[in-house]
């Protein structure tokens, strides 16, 4: 009786263990397959955009503004300039408050405001960019009465703010406590310690964080749809030369750059891709190439930089 029972158990166990091993192998390899499956679109998109965009990209593309609809040639200089102006404005608006808030979050993480700040940053980074566009329209475009690069920059700044706060905070936290304590022990006040000891120690990482935030913002379209709107005749060079010829003051020239609707690369891509003219679609592939390479390069360089920095700080 017992021997039969034992035999049965053993038989069962052998079968069971074979099944368990198969399930184990199958499921584990399935996770590898899933990883490949997810990375496939990345290579597909990058490869195809390089292939398509590479055919239509040329020097004209970078040095001319748009030609009238239906005409071949022309470039997207207006969009490149617009992207630069809008992203620059966004960086100017978002970096100072983001940096200071990150100082607070890194220094006082457990106060009520510190917890609220971290929570608020997380929530803000989850707000859809189109909703931020609506908000910027309501608070800037509507009172000003017209679309402008300024409004676009402000909308972008709101989008960048959470990224800047979070990455800066992480980099500040990586700075060894001994540095801060040493400075405080020498009698330096808190603010001087933060600005001239902690901040320089974290500078490389912080700048990388800014770069990542800027790259993310440069690829965004939704917040610009009804703030910067788009403007195919936007030409900074012409504004500046005209301004100098008419002896306008520096403020007037800046005002004209920031105060009119502007285009940006993603906005141009979106508009061109929906037009029935083949040359515009070709240009939209070229725009996609420029945009994608810019974003990917900034991302890769920034990540390499952060990684080497982390290794050095952690020893």
């Amino acid at each position, binding site marked *: 009786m017992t021997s039969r029972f034992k035999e049965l158990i053993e038989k069962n166990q052998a079968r069971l263990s074979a099944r368990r091993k198969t399930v184990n192998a199958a499921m584990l390899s399935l996770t*590898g397959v899933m990883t490949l499956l997810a990375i496939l679109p990345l290579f597909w*998109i990058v490869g195809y955009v390089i292939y398509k965009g590479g055919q239509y990209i040329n020097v004209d593309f970078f040095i001319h503004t748009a030609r009238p609809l239906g005409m071949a040639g022309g470039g997207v200089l207006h969009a490149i300039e617009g992207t630069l102006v809008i992203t620059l404005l966004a960086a100017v608006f978002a970096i100072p408050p983001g940096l200071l808030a990150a100082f607070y979050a890194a220094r006082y993480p457990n106060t009520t405001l510190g917890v609220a700040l971290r929570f608020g940053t997380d*929530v803000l980074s989850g707000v*859809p960019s189109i909703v931020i566009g*609506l908000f910027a329209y309501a608070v800037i475009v509507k009172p000003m009465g017209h679309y402008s690069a300024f409004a676009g920059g402000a909308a972008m700044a709101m989008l960048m703010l959470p990224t800047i706060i979070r990455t800066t905070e992480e980099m500040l936290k990586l700075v060894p406590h001994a540095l801060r304590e040493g400075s405080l022990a020498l009698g330096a006040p808190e603010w001087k310690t933060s600005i001239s000891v902690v901040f320089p120690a974290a500078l490389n990482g912080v700048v990388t964080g800014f770069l990542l935030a800027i790259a993310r913002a440069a690829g965004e*379209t939704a917040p610009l749809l*009804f703030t910067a709107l788009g403007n195919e005749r936007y030409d900074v060079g012409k504004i500046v030369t005209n301004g100098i010829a008419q002896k306008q003051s520096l403020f007037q020239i800046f005002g004209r750059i920031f105060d009119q609707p502007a285009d940006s690369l993603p906005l141009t891509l979106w508009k061109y*891709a929906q037009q029935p003219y083949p040359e515009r679609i070709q240009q939209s592939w070229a725009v996609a190439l420029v945009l994608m390479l810019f974003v990917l390069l900034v991302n890769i360089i920034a990540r390499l930089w952060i990684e080497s920095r982390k290794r050095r700080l952690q020893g």
Partner: protein
Amino acid sequence: MTKYISVLPETHWLTRLRRFISHGDSLWQWILIIASLLALTIVLAIGWMLWRESADARNAFGFGFLTPTANPSWDPVNNNFQAWPFIYGTLLTSFAALIIAIPISVGIAIFLSELCPAWLRLPLNWLVELLAAIPSVVYGLWGIFVFLPLVVSPIANGLFTAFGSLPVVGSLFAGPVPANGASRLGAAFILTIMIIPTITAVTRDVLLAIPANQREASLALGSTQWETIWQVLLPYGLSGILGAVILGLGRALGETMAVTMVIGNSIEGSASLLRPGYTMASIIANEFAEAVSKLHSQALIEIGLILFFMTLVLNIVARLLVWRVARKTPQEARV
């Protein structure tokens, strides 16, 4: 060393101000506090502005704006607006994307945190994260010219022939499939690719935060590696993974450009996944700049308000869930 003799009494406000500035720390702290409050104010201000700016639309349409209807109307000429087709489009595409993305993302997270050799981990992490870095419009462009004709159309036709005539689910897979493939299914697939990095990153962090002794105990009892993952690690990190999924859902709900480019942008009564549609974000993107009347733009802002509210709630829930796992695990117990 010059000596400063104050002619003002100690309690005078100018003396206090001078001391406040010359030491600097309390001033510095106030600057930091103001900057921190700015970030919080923006979140509150978004909600308040959208609420205020949509007042007329809210008064005019009431709750009928949101409720499901068989014959929804979106009529800028007669100023009659109902948001149901867009809410339905957003929910359908997002949940469809979620259903596809969950197994893939959790699989990747398991591979990255448990199985992957160390030298491969960093490059793979990067590749998955780069997927999130590609601008949304580039996804859209690729979607229109490559993904829709080559991938979505065949799958949509297959689904139509397989399920289109079934009694209950048939309405979800009703045809005809549009010739260019632009459909809610296409939007769902693009969303899947876009939310995989989000869900994967958080799930991976949750799995990595699980104490090593949980794994060791399970393996010591004789479980295979998969049984350890399936019966120990996933239940342990469940609330965190749920948080990751909700974060992904939040991203899917708000994604605008790529979806607008591939969903076909049509307002029709059909509930089918294989037909073109609209999402809340894409109707705003398409119509807001050219809104014909005040009520039209207010109705669009109200849609924005609903979208904001949905993502706000989802984000708060998700963060609480992720924080709960992080708190449950003591620091010293981590790997």
